[in-house]
């Protein structure tokens, strides 16, 4: 059956060659559509392609490109599916069309259909890198980690330094507690791509987990060098610096965090704690108040503010009010519960 279709397709091509005027016109329109799509003029591109198909109704590549434009530029996924199916109907060995149809199905959340199309693309080209990657991501999206891991490994067997596959596999292995393997992959990744901020960050969290604070700090610094506005890397670095007693440097990190993300209540809270440790009472109080303003239900901020009033300002009255608020918000600290209870007597 397939042979017959292939023969038919070949005959069609021969046929189209035998009418060079039409073929040229359709091809011209196709190229025009490609250029228009490149400029973001998707409606015009789609129009050009429809014209090309009008001239050459069995123009599989035109249907394929039209499907892509529907899917990406025009965000009309059902039409994209139809176009891509038509391309496949016209050319059943059209691996890219299967692949793109798989992507559209993924976008529609139709995971079984997506998987089927990607498998078809891979049946035609087993080393089809993009399809292998997409399949792995499909499994990862479905949280089928045990299938995603070998799928990413398959990507790496085709392209050992594939950054996305290295990162994804490192991430997944780490999530499975296979830290040593994960670390090896991520180390390879940052060798291949030294500015892979996420990889450095992940290495940093792994080092922290292994109580290797110096390595973690180094990794976070590299993540920040690669992506200076990497909020979480600054945040975690702030933690490490605070633990090392480098309070000034910790303040700087948390200040950077709140500059990058001014509504980050947690970061304001941390900033307040470090200021309090530095005995910079006014900025500490302001930071706590900002944290509470941003998130009025944040019990931990009331805890710290209460401690601040009690121990740093020696103002037991305000401390008590703040502690009560902490408990109202679900705070569970034994000492605070005891104090509030004793003070009620």
């Amino acid at each position: 059956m397939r042979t017959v279709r292939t023969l038919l397709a070949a005959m069609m091509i021969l046929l189209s060659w035998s009418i060079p005027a039409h073929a040229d016109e359709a091809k011209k329109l196709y190229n025009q559509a490609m250029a228009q799509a490149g400029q973001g003029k998707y409606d015009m591109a789609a129009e050009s392609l429809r014209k090309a198909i009008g001239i050459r109704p069995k123009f599989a590549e035109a249907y394929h490109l039209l499907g892509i434009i529907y899917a990406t530029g025009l965000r009309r996924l059902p039409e994209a599916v139809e176009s891509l199916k038509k391309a496949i109907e016209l050319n059943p060995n059209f691996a890219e069309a299967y692949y793109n149809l798989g992507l559209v199905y993924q976008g529609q959340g139709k995971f079984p259909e997506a998987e089927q199309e990607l498998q078809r693309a891979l049946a035609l080209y087993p080393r089809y890198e993009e399809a292998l990657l997409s399949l792995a991501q499909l499994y990862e999206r479905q949280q089928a980690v045990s299938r995603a891991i070998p799928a990413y490994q398959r990507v790496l067997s085709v392209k050992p330094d594939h950054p996305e596959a290295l990162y994804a596999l490192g991430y997944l292995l780490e999530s499975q507690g296979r830290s040593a393997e994960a670390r090896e992959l991520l180390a390879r990744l940052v060798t291949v791509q030294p500015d892979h901020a996420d990889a450095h960050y992940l290495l940093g969290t792994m080092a922290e987990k292994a109580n290797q604070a110096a390595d973690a700090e180094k990794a976070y610094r590299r993540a920040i060098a690669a992506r200076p506005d990497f909020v979480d890397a600054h945040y975690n670095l702030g933690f490490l610096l605070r633990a090392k007693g480098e309070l000034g440097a910790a303040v700087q990190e948390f200040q950077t965090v709140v500059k990058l993300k001014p509504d980050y209540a947690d970061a304001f809270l941390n900033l307040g704690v470090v200021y309090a440790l530095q005995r910079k009472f006014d900025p500490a109080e302001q930071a706590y108040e900002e944290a509470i303003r941003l998130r009025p239900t944040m019990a931990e901020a009331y805890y710290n503010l209460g401690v601040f009033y009690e121990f740093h300002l020696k103002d037991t009255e305000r401390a008590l009010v703040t502690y009560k608020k902490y408990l109202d918000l679900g705070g569970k600290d034994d000492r605070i519960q005891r104090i509030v209870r004793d003070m009620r007597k």
Partner: protein
Amino acid sequence: MKRVNQGLNRSLACARLRSLMKVLRTAHSNCRCDWLVAGGVALALLMTPSGGHSTSPAEPDRIEQLDEVEVTAARIAPHPRVLPALTPEVSTATLLPPDVPRQPFTPIGSMLSESAIPRLLRDETAQSPGKRTRVRYLEITRPAYPRRAREMGWEGTVVLRLEVHADGTVGEVSVQQSAGHDLLDQAAMNAAKGWSFAPQMDGAFAVPAVVDVPVRFDLTEPESQLVR
């Protein structure tokens, strides 16, 4: 012979008490609890934990129950992974001329990143040692040794349970353990009502507390009979 034994026992008891007082003086430097010989009253004040007793005036289950040391470790979670959504690309169209730029597009069904890992610092001042102090003596007037007790040779230790208010004054007083003679118990209780204390401190807060205070009535032998 019997009398010698009594004297010896008493001397041993005195020696034990003396070393106990030494410990007490070290522990409670504010406590003026001297080993009185001349006055005929031996008064030992000892703050003892009294947890678990049901006869106390206040809630005894919280007496001198030390804080847990809280170890706060920051949770380290891997950065949530943002899975890039692949979308069909014009570049996968087979007839794509190599010089056509890949146009940027927003990913289909892009997965949102939840960037924040909840890691919160805590001001640990409240957990540092010395933030919680026990009740300490401020002004202790020793009871006079009741004359009749002296005449009868009554001795013994009464353990009083005192409620110490946040302002350091004494609230309810009860006998936790009798000296064996009402007269002695009563003398100790009457005296205790007028005592004042530095209250128990929990951080900056003065808090009420319940303490046990042993008061020992001890008649001493002449100096020459005190042997170590």
